[in-house]
């Protein structure tokens, strides 16, 4: 266990976990909801990597997508609307040993939680972040979200959304210290899995936006791309996402993109109408705030009391 001493020494021997060992409560999402696929991918990843359920924490905000932790049989924190990032960063701050996933929605991350999103990217703590973007507020019944496309109708804009949508990838790529930015679709399990796997393997904050089908409210947005793989563009590169090659043959359009090229990534990200999937950007050079926050873990009581005495000396009469 990285950097952990004394306090933390109790470590149970690993055990063999099957898929069932990661399955919590019965998911209550609508049939055909993309959240089901993401859950399945994360559970498979956990099984394949043999993540120990007691050392895995899934943190979320509020929304349909944020129900995610309940459906995992790991530790979980179903937090407040928009506030998954602060909670997850706090969990990470003193626990370098845990595997931490953050699940958030487009309203959760890109509206009420925007400040935390920007700063979490900058903190670059080791977190696997999944933005489940269905272009709508699902849980509260179809209100416009920041990613709702212009002209799309909702209960708050019955005549159609009047503003251009916010592009989460572009925003994230614009934040200093972003270290892993990828995009995928929930309806292609191999690419979804490979993307989440790469994100999980990255040390630092990996940001994955998943185009997520919401058959209940926004089926017309994602159905065309689902039925026509020609609407999807795949970014390929030796340093990119490696999904099953046979399965990827489905997509006719490819673009070669070197994920170390930030300029190019920003250009590619601009077109939010095209479903561009793959790794936009990755850097292992970014500062990681969790390396600062976790300093000093495991100091013994005796050391602390001695340090306290020295601290009090500063105020001694």
């Amino acid at each position, binding site marked *: 266990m990285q950097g952990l001493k*004394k*306090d*933390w020494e*109790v470590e*149970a021997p690993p055990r063999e976990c099957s898929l069932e060992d990661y399955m*919590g*409560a019965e998911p209550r999402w609508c049939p055909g909801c993309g959240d089901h696929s993401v859950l399945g991918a994360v559970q498979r990843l956990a099984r394949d990597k043999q993540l*120990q*359920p*007691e*050392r895995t*924490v*899934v*943190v979320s905000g509020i929304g349909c997508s944020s129900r995610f*932790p*309940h459906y995992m*049989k790991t*530790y*979980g*924190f*179903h*937090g*407040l609307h928009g*506030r998954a*990032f*602060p*909670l*997850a960063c*706090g*969990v*990470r*701050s*003193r*626990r370098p*040993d*845990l595997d931490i996933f953050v699940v958030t929605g487009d309203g959760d991350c890109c509206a009420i939680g925007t*400040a*935390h999103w*920007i*700063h979490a990217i900058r903190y670059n703590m080791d977190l696997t972040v999944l933005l489940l973007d269905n272009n709508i507020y699902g849980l509260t019944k179809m209100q416009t979200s920041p990613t709702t496309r212009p002209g799309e109708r909702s209960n708050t804009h019955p005549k159609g959304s009047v503003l251009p949508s916010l592009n989460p990838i572009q925003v994230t790529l614009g934040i200093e210290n972003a270290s892993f930015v990828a995009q995928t679709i929930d309806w292609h399990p191999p690419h979804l899995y490979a993307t989440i796997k790469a994100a999980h393997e990255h040390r630092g904050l990996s940001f994955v936006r998943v185009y997520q089908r919401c058959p209940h409210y926004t089926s017309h947005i994602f159905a065309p791309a689902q039925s026509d793989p020609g609407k999807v563009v795949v970014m390929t590169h030796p340093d990119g996402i490696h999904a099953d090659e046979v399965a990827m043959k489905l997509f006719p359009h490819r673009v070669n993109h070197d994920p170390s090229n930030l300029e190019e990534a920003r250009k590619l990200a601009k077109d939010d109408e095209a479903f561009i999937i793959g790794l936009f950007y990755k850097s292992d050079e970014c500062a990681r705030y969790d390396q600062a926050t976790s*300093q*000093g*873990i*495991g*100091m013994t*009581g*005796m*050391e*602390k*009391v001695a*340090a*306290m*005495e*020295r*601290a*009090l000396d*500063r*105020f*001694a*009469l």
Partner: protein
Amino acid sequence: MQSLHPKPTTPINSTKYHYLQELAFQLLPYSRVFLRGTSSKAMQPVIAVNEPVSTRTPRQIDQHIVEIVSDSGEGAQTCGQMFASLCARSGNGIWTVEIIPAEIEPPARSRAGASGYRIRLGSQPVTNAGDTADVVVAFNEQVLYSRIDTKALRPGTIVYLDQSWAEHQAEDIRIKYAEAIKDFDRLGYIVVEIPIERECKKHTDDARRGKNMWVLGLLCALYDLDMDMVRGDIAKRFAKKGEGVIRKNVLLLEDGYDWAVRHTAERFHIPATKSEKPMVVMNGNQAIGLGVMAAGMELCAMYPITPATSASHFLASAFDQVGGFVHQAEDEIAAIGFAIGASYAGKTAVTITSGPGLALKTEFIGLAVMAEVPLVIVVVQRGGPSTGLPTKIEQGDLLAALYASPGDSPKIIIAPATIEECFHFMITARKLAEEFRGPVMVLTDANLATGQQPFPRPKCSEAWLAAPVDQSDWEKEIPPFAWDEETGLSQRPIPGQRGGEHVVTGLAHDRASHVAYESAINQQSMEMRSRKLAVLQSTLKQPAVHGANEGDLLVVGWGSTLGAIEEAVDRVRADGHRVSSLHLRFLSPFEPGLKQIFSRFKNVMTVEINYSDEPGKPYINEESRRYSQLAMLLRARTLMDIDCWSRVPGSPLPPAMIENELRRRLQVMRNA
């Protein structure tokens, strides 16, 4: 209760009544020797003469209140701090108040720019800032006006005023100065014009940067302090700036000292009562920081806000020594979220803020209550509402703290009344947060935050530290909210504990932490969270009354007003009146037995620094009157007619102000 804790090795002490001893120990000392008699009685005027009077021995007195005021940036605060520290180390009791300018870089010679320090020093421990000043050293006449505006002076106050403005090249400044001298005479101050700037210019080209050391020398002479000690302080303070700077400052100091010995008519000696025990001196925010460390907390998440920030400044300078970290978040919401995340996954964390930050944190406070995550929230109160009086004292956030969060969110609220308690209450707060599994709020205020007071050096112990994070297996059969039916208490599994996997949620949930909308479960879980407060109350002692246990009038207070209230009560009691006081440390739940205490007094009233309507004002009648915050709670709690007297001056309530009100009330009672 014991049974629901899965492992006997668990670090959490679950003996129901251990708080009786432990809290009593940590809330010590309730009673102290308080200063008696008003400072005005102790005062005798001093007249400056031009003849050397160095042979005269200093006159012995009990206590004095000294203020040093300057333009912002001239170092009156540094001077005051060094003087206070000297007095404390000489064995005097002290209480200090920072005089803070309204702006960061106010214009020179302006009332708004007054920056300085008040030090009340005495032979005995000093519990509050006292009434009007005995001695004020002012670097110019305009900053003195600002002190006059806040009623810090009285006829007879000795004012040492820099006379160089009388010779200033600008005519308007000379005129203003001359007018001011006339004003001050008319107001009855004993003005002693002193050549601060002229003397400083002998040693430095930039007198603005030297005056404070010269004045420190003057004060050392006036109060007969040990010059070797202060030379050492200067050497330490300017060590990084090199020998030359140290020498120059020592020269200024000595010049100020010599001048005072030669020219002041009277000097003072306040005998020290050296404590047997080793002592420390610090302000309330430093005490909170040290308390956080001594409690074994390892994470403080904050967002800068006056007057709370300096606690985090201190922690940032020292926390790493005990393996801790200060996280400056992007806002107060993120700060508490981060702290909750850290607490949930490990040791109890702390977030430190003031009123506006508390407002932002409320949703997360509710989550900590609902998800039963231990957390310490320090609220250093300032004047409100809204941005209010950012640097000034108020006790206006009691109800905001109590009711912070939507729905019913029972939480523990404690309020230290002294600097020493600021330290010890942090240890108590962490333990309460863990034992009772939820947020504990610690309410202090700007007065405690910046006031310095000596107290016995705490003897830190491993028992005060948070236990190591439990990573052993969790008994699968025990749900994450195994509420004990009687007490509502339960123990939490922490990530890493195999078998304890669960999802905490802010949604209504059952014992397994499964989302549950059933009415019976909701009723029960609400009951369980609330019951914990009653259980805590059952372990607390009835608070001790200051003065007799029965009488005509009982004054109830909380927080930083302790010293001033008790001093006022003592003065009135000295005249034979049957007045006592009671100071509450626990505000949620209250300490037990209050009704019983109240019933032994004819009248009960709170004294608070928050707003209440005054009877007799337009439209104010029995139905419309809004009471001060503690009074409102006590009335609801006891169904007794508890009155209140509260003011919002933005400064600590001087004992004399409280004393006047007590005398007025007693008169009204006699007439009735």
